């Protein structure tokens, strides 16, 4: 009965299911009549219940079961979906999440959920739940008594039928025992020679980590008698005391039934256990090859090693071309193809869609809006945008803060909005997208916007700026002030968006990631917080171009198109060379001059032009020739060369050489 190998899978899967439940509940709130959504939730909840029962996390299974009952009633149209009911269900999901997290951190996953269970029951009986503060004190793990779930009970009963006897053995180690885990291991081994360990308290993982005092209980089925077991255990040194009690199966059965009765369990017990078991083993088998956790450092070194391989590949390709040996060429070509695929896999392994951070926001926004009596609709755009794992890990908290800020300070209450002629429901747009060398995340609200005078007044009163300075500041500079520490513009302090200690922390977190944050705001119309994040390690598509003997990469994201232009068609406008491009006047930028490229060859009668844009402005970058489109790995220039003009980074080409990536945003003024 060693479950530890399944534990990680169980936790991952449980979190996935809880996430699905969360998402679907939000959907359900929008369209309460939709039975398919309820079915979806039901499915996830059911699987979760089955899994946790098999893993022996009874509290988790029980609470899920209770939730299932409510969902069942909704599905059968016995109760109407109301926000109040959903609140309770959400709270139950919160509890479930807390339990799963506790298990993930090595705890026992126990939690006092009686209140939520009570409320769920009330709902099930068609009554309105009494809203009360959720109590959440984890019950202390019992050491002197052992409780058994249905599944264990079943096993015990079966083994009895086969002539085994079940014992609960309480073992106490000597207080001066040094290697407790080793002793536990020896005891387990001694017992497993003559029987099977059904359960231990604390669980085996905790015992292995020595997370227990001196005492633990194991439940064993064995054909040996009590005395023999005792002797076997006492052979292990440093054991203080062993108390063996045969288990009273009837009593356990009764306790179980009582517990079940309390939970108004309806289904046939044995049938269900069987079903659960089947479901979860199937899940586990499927999940076994689904996820595996790998340390990021390993991926990094894999990546670096692979890049060396790419360099050698480039050399090999060159050598094979020179030697012109068909068999060698064939082999090298094959190798190139395979390593190309490999490259993609390795690069993609580190990238995580930003969705993993975004998906917890709808739930949070809903809760906050309800708490504040506001109506907010959260729109998420570009959740599939991929970011490096390390950035993903850090970006969650700052985003939470900005969202809270937008709901609390940005979006107005429904009556204020109505008075202003806006729709009652405020909208917050959370948008993520790649642009050039960066990922942008924008949080846009259609709320009140930032009041310049109010910010200035506050900043002056807090001593952040002086009155003389205040008048000279541009709007942008004024908005920047709200990132100063010790600043809060809300008229009254609420516990939602903090006490003015937040935004400066947000700013410093983002800057520590090498990013930046800007605000744009129109009073009365809303604000946009725009976060720019570097792709410390990311793949982008570029157009490789040649300027004299040098190669540069231009991100495809900023390219509109490429063109070959005759020299005669260059026009002059105010000392600036321009071309007429599809009816628009586009200024030409000669990269050769801007980058002071050493000239080796003269240019011909035709110019190769890459039309790029920044916002609605365009420019034509004049290069010597286009090499082609390529997927590249972004690399920084290191900490020594920071802020090189119009260069946003570098990449290593197939031949091992470094090519610089052009930052089109810096070229267009």
């Amino acid at each position, binding site marked *: 009965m060693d479950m530890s190998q399944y534990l990680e899978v169980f936790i991952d899967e449980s979190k996935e299911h809880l996430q699905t439940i969360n998402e679907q509940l939000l959907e359900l709130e929008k369209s309460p009549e939709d039975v398919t959504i309820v079915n979806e939730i039901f499915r996830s909840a059911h699987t979760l219940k089955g899994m946790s029962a098999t893993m022996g996390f009874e509290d988790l299974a029980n609470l899920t079961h209770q939730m299932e009952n409510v969902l069942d009633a909704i599905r059968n149209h016995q109760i109407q979906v109301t926000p109040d009911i959903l609140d309770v269900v959400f709270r139950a999901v919160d509890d479930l999440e807390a339990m799963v997290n506790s298990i993930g951190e090595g705890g026992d996953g126990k939690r006092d959920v009686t209140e939520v269970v009570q409320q769920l029951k009330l709902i099930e009986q068609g009554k309105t739940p009494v809203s009360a503060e959720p109590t959440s004190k984890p019950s202390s793990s019992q050491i002197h008594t052992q409780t058994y779930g249905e599944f264990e009970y079943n096993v015990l009963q079966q083994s009895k039928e086969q002539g085994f006897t079940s014992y609960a053995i309480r073992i106490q180690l000597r207080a001066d025992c040094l290697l407790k885990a080793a002793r536990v291991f020896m005891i387990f081994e001694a017992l497993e020679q003559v029987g099977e360990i059904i359960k231990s308290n604390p669980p085996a993982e905790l015992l292995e980590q020595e997370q227990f005092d001196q005492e633990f209980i194991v439940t064993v089925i064995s054909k040996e008698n009590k005395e023999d077991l005792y002797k076997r255990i006492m052979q292990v040194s440093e054991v203080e005391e062993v108390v063996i009690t045969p288990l009273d199966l009837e009593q356990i059965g009764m306790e179980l039934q009582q517990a079940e009765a309390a939970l108004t369990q309806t289904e046939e017990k044995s049938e269900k256990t069987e079903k659960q078991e089947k479901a979860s083993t199937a899940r586990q088998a499927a999940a076994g090859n689904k996820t595996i956790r790998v340390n990021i450092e390993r991926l990094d070194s894999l990546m670096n090693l692979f890049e060396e391989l790419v360099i050698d590949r480039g050399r090999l390709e060159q050598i094979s071309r020179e030697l012109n040996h068909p068999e060698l060429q064939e082999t090298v070509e094959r190798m190139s193809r395979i390593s190309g695929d490999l490259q993609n896999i390795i690069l993609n392994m580190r990238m995580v869609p930003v969705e993993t951070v975004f998906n917890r926001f709808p739930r949070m926004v809903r809760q906050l809006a309800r708490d504040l009596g506001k109506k907010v609709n959260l729109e998420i755009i570009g959740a599939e945008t991929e970011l490096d794992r390390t950035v993903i890990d850090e970006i969650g908290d700052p985003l939470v803060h900005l969202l809270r800020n937008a709901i609390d300070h940005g979006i107005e209450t429904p009556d204020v909005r109505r008075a202003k002629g806006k729709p009652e429901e405020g909208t917050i747009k959370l948008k993520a997208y790649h642009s050039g060398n960066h990922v942008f995340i924008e949080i846009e609200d259609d709320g009140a916007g930032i009041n310049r005078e109010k910010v200035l007044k506050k900043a002056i009163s807090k001593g952040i700026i002086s009155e003389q300075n205040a008048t000279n500041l541009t709007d942008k500079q004024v908005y920047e002030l709200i990132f100063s520490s010790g600043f809060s513009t809300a008229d009254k302090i609420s516990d939602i968006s903090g006490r003015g200690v937040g935004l400066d922390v947000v700013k410093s977190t983002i800057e520590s990631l090498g990013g930046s944050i800007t605000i744009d705001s129109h009073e009365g119309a809303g604000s946009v917080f725009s976060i720019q994040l570097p792709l410390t390690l990311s793949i982008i598509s570029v157009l490789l171009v040649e300027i004299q003997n*040098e190669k540069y990469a231009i991100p495809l994201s900023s390219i509109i198109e490429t063109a070959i232009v005759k020299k005669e068609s260059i026009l002059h406008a105010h000392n600036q060379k321009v071309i007429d491009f599809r009816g628009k006047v586009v200024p030409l930028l000669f990269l050769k001059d801007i980058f002071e490229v050493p000239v080796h060859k003269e240019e011909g009668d035709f110019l190769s032009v890459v039309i790029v844009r920044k916002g609605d402005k365009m420019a034509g970058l004049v290069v010597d020739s286009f090499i082609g489109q390529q997927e590249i790995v972004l*690399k*920084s220039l290191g900490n020594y060369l920071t802020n*090189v003009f119009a260069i946003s980074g*570098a990449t290593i080409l197939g031949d091992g*050489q470094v090519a610089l990536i052009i930052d089109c945003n810096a070229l267009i003024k």
Partner: protein
Amino acid sequence: MTEFQGTELKVIVFQLKDEEYAIPVQQVRSIEKVQHITRVPRTPDFVKGVINLRGVVTPIIDLRTRFGLEEAAISESTRVIIVTLDEIEVGFIVDAANDVVDIPADAIESAPEVMDTAQVDYINGVAKMGKRLLILLNLEKLLNNQELKVAK
């Protein structure tokens, strides 16, 4: 050897024109042969560009240019010394690097006054080893120069 422990400084010695310079061995990551350098536009002239050092893009500084000496053609003995300081990793182009020396602490003297004042800034001292004179470089000063900031 043991009786001098703690009072000795292990350094990598390299050559520039006719003089020998030294960098503490802890600050040296590796010594490489010269490979293809990609020029980085609009940087000070002593920044030769960047190379691909086993997957890491590493800036390269020509120490001759940096010290105001005339440039030299790359020869068989030209080396790139990769040094690291805090988070910064750069390579120095030097004429030759082929010695590791233990300098007893008492052999180190502060930089002589007669030297060019601009240079004294990034020179920690001078070590006299018999007939050889080793100039000890101060990487902090060498890499945190104002010229690069101006170039921004």
